[in-house]
């Protein structure tokens, strides 16, 4: 395999009949004819056409593929709402310990005490951070946590004999919020945003009523702003007996500083792959534990990790899985959740402790506000004004509207041009309510030098566009491939290799 020469080939195109990487161990037992064991009628005629390649070729193929990715461990990745912070290497080491990595999920709890204790301790830590007493680690990701949250709300209302039909989300909400509402069988009601970037309280008051089951909110919002009216919002929602759901994707801004539970939220989800350093893996794995208030607790998914206070008879293990939860919404998935993610997040919490976690949020907010200030200094805000003139939290939104009108390049062009400068673009065109939005989240693990340089790069691209907008419009130039035709891909989808 030669670098560059054949990078476009798929592993299937590298296949040659007869090559192999796998050597089978000897069967080692008496063999009866396969037809006696599994009748031909149940068997497939042809083996699946998997690639035939040697180990060296597999390694080169995937290593070379990897070199066509931009990654956090080699460059700045200010992807708003995703908290692309450093993933400590220790976490990979501890997660790989055989006692964690090779533990079967159906092992007798008495023989998995280390794992259950770790989960129990993680639950306790997350509860303290959220300010809500009860935690389920089961959901597999944020959106799964949202689904759990809405189902919990439903179970809560039904338990009280109510059948509510509507769920409120602000128009700034992340797409998973409305999608979850529909998926859980509710009708979505959208709330407006006022000119300060807060939830429009009048709109809320107008739309809230006895049919509303829940309000889903992110705080700080996806605008990177803290909902100053949160207390009133909570009051209004609780007024009608609805629940208040906290989308924890932005928790990185407030750890140890303020707590959703104290704000009046009933249910919180965490994105352990954001605030708690599970590597993002190109789109997972993640984990979306939820923390809830007392009134929601009875409905938490099955099973729950519990600790036996009654250490009376030694026969019972100290930590156990509790399936006897009559009011539970039931299971959301198999087994006990993404344990491997829990190990990493627990290690992170132990490494930083209370003061460290607070520093994380302080620096996350400091870095964001500093970067915004530097962009102002660079004069960038003339074309890329902040969507709201306020202090931001851990991230902020710029509007590419003026840039588009005055320089003739769109936010997309700016993003693509950033690629040529070795920077991963911020989140673009989200939140939807901001024209040509750019959502920038530097995170706490970046240096001041990096932020300074990033501000300089943005300024340089705008200067360049003033002279010649075509440069940005046709960017990128230095990437493994250039702009790709997504429309064609969607028109005639080719989603597998023809063999």
């Amino acid at each position, binding site marked *: 395999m030669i670098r560059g020469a054949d990078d476009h080939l798929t592993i299937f195109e590298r296949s040659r009949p007869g090559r192999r990487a796998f050597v089978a161990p000897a069967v080692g037992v008496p063999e009866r004819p396969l037809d006696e064991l599994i009748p031909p009628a149940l068997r497939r005629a042809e083996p699946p056409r998997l690639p035939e390649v040697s180990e060296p070729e597999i390694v080169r193929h995937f290593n070379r593929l990897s070199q066509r990715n931009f990654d956090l461990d080699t460059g700045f990745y200010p992807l708003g709402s995703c908290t692309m912070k450093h993933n400590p290497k220790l976490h990979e080491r501890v997660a790989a310990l055989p006692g964690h990595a090779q533990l079967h999920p*159906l092992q007798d709890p008495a023989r998995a005490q280390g794992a259950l204790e770790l989960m129990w301790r993680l639950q306790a830590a997350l509860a303290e951070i959220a300010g809500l007493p009860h935690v389920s680690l089961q959901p597999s990701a944020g959106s799964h946590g949202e689904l759990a949250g809405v189902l919990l709300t439903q179970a809560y209302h039904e338990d009280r004999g109510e059948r509510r039909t509507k769920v409120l989300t602000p128009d700034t909400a992340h797409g998973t919020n409305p999608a979850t509402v529909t998926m859980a069988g509710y009708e979505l009601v959208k709330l407006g945003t006022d000119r300060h970037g807060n939830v429009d309280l009048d709109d809320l008051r107008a739309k809230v009523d006895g049919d509303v089951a829940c309000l889903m909110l992110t705080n700080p919002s996806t605008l990177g702003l803290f909902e100053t009216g949160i207390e009133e919002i909570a009051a209004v929602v609780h007024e009608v007996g609805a629940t208040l759901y906290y989308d924890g994707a932005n928790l990185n801004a407030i750890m140890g500083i303020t707590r959703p539970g104290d704000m009046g939220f009933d249910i919180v989800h965490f994105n352990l792959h954001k605030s708690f350093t599970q590597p993002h893996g190109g789109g997972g794995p993640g984990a979306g534990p939820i923390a809830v208030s007392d009134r929601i607790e009875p409905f938490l998914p099955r099973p729950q990790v519990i600790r036996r206070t009654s250490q009376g008879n030694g026969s019972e293990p100290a930590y156990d899985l509790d399936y006897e939860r009559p009011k539970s919404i039931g299971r959301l998935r198999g087994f006990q959740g993404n344990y491997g993610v829990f190990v990493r997040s627990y290690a992170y919490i132990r490494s930083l402790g209370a003061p460290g976690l607070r520093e994380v949020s302080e620096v996350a907010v400091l870095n964001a506000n500093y970067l915004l200030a530097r962009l102002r200094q660079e004069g960038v805000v003339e074309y890329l004004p902040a969507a709201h003139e306020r202090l931001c939290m851990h991230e902020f939104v710029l509007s590419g509207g003026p840039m588009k009108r005055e320089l003739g390049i769109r936010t997309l062009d700016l993003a693509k041009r950033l690629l040529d400068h070795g920077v991963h673009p911020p989140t673009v065109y989200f939140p939807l309510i901001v024209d040509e939005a750019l959502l920038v989240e530097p995170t706490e693990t970046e240096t001041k030098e990096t932020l300074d340089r990033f501000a300089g790069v943005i300024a340089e691209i705008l200067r360049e566009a003033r002279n010649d907008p075509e440069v940005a419009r046709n960017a990128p130039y230095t990437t493994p491939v250039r702009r790709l035709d997504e429309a064609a891909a969607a028109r005639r989808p080719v989603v597998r290799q023809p063999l």
Partner: protein
Amino acid sequence: MTQYTSVTDDDRRQMLEAIGVSSVEDLFADIPARLRLARPLALDPGLSEQEVYAELRELAERNVSTDAELSFLGAGMYDHYIPALIDSILQRSEFLTPYTPYQPEVSQGTLQAMFEYQTAISELTGLPVSNASVYEGPSAVAAAGYLAKLEKGRRRFVVSRGVHPHAREALATLARAWDMEVEEAPLIDGLTRLPDLDEDVSAVVVQQPNFLGAVEDLEPLAEAAHRSGALAICACDPLPLALLRPPGECGFDIAVGEGQTLGNRLDFGGPSFGFFAATQELIRRVPGRIAGETRDVDGRRGFVLTLQTREQHIRREKATSNICTAQALNALAGVIYLTWLGRQGIVDLVTLLVHRTAHARQRLGAVPGISAVHEQPVVREFAVNLDAPVDRVLARCREQGINPGYPLGHDYPELPNGLLVAITEQRSRQDIDRLAGGLGAAVAAERQNVEAPA
């Protein structure tokens, strides 16, 4: 300053000055004072790396892993050997640390790997469309149910009792929210017996091989579903599909399942991945990411996330699912594993499993007090009944470092002393003999106790 942050006192001073505030505290001015946490979090202070490592190691050592005992546990996750090259690739930061490939120009590695993964899943399931992964097995069954609900809008699911209990429960959890009923189809002689299906069924769900290890005859099941206008959904373990007729070929509309068996660790249950494959007709209802092939402005081949109008970030409340972050890295492990096995290797491996499992089944069948639950063909797992209290028998075996399998009583009250035994390529003939001996002795001992209670 922490080991992961870089703001020195000097930096902080300059930064605050640039911002125009006098303290970090000022940055949180928007947070009502009443809501500020007046105390530190009630968590211990931070530890050094070596201390955290020592603590996590201590916790790990209080778990009995498949390294530390002779384990025949399966029931959805299996102790297969994972080749070293998988981790060497997964640990490359270029795969480990980026997020969803929103910027395809700098994400071709992830996108092409997804495309290759989709191709491999399509080959295994015999269905033309695969997405790039969902969370894991049981929730994948629920996701398939949601697709069926959107597609058919009928009020009932018919689910085989041979479907993994966790999957049945995950589907039931959502069905409740959708005001839908879940009707269970019984297992007769270990195989699914469908009831008469009327017009109100959105989908029929079966599992291959089923939870008791039996290989189902899929084609008639798909036909029955289709006769009633329902979708046919097959939950399957991808590895046995190396030998078994693929669900797509048998007429199933959707195949989903747990991907752990494809090169992913046990990890006490996760993270692994779920796969989701479907017919061409259903492509615009499939949940989650799908990678597609296209070209760049210079005509070079490239890959992008495609059909995104299905997804939450575009369609929001009209999306076909709420899934966002899925299991990309685990699916990558899956396609590397399948490539490592290769066309011949996967057949060699599964054939080995069939023979070793048949041997184990025969050895246990010959033990007094152990009887088969069914006589159907199996691949790498089978169910037996013990003529003694299963929990006490297991306790005895564990004392000898043997973990004979998963007790079925909790999920199948009709099999109070049932045991599900899984055989992977890491269990040798000697291991199987040890199992037969140990289990036999334990059963014998417990039967005596029962006959003559002290």
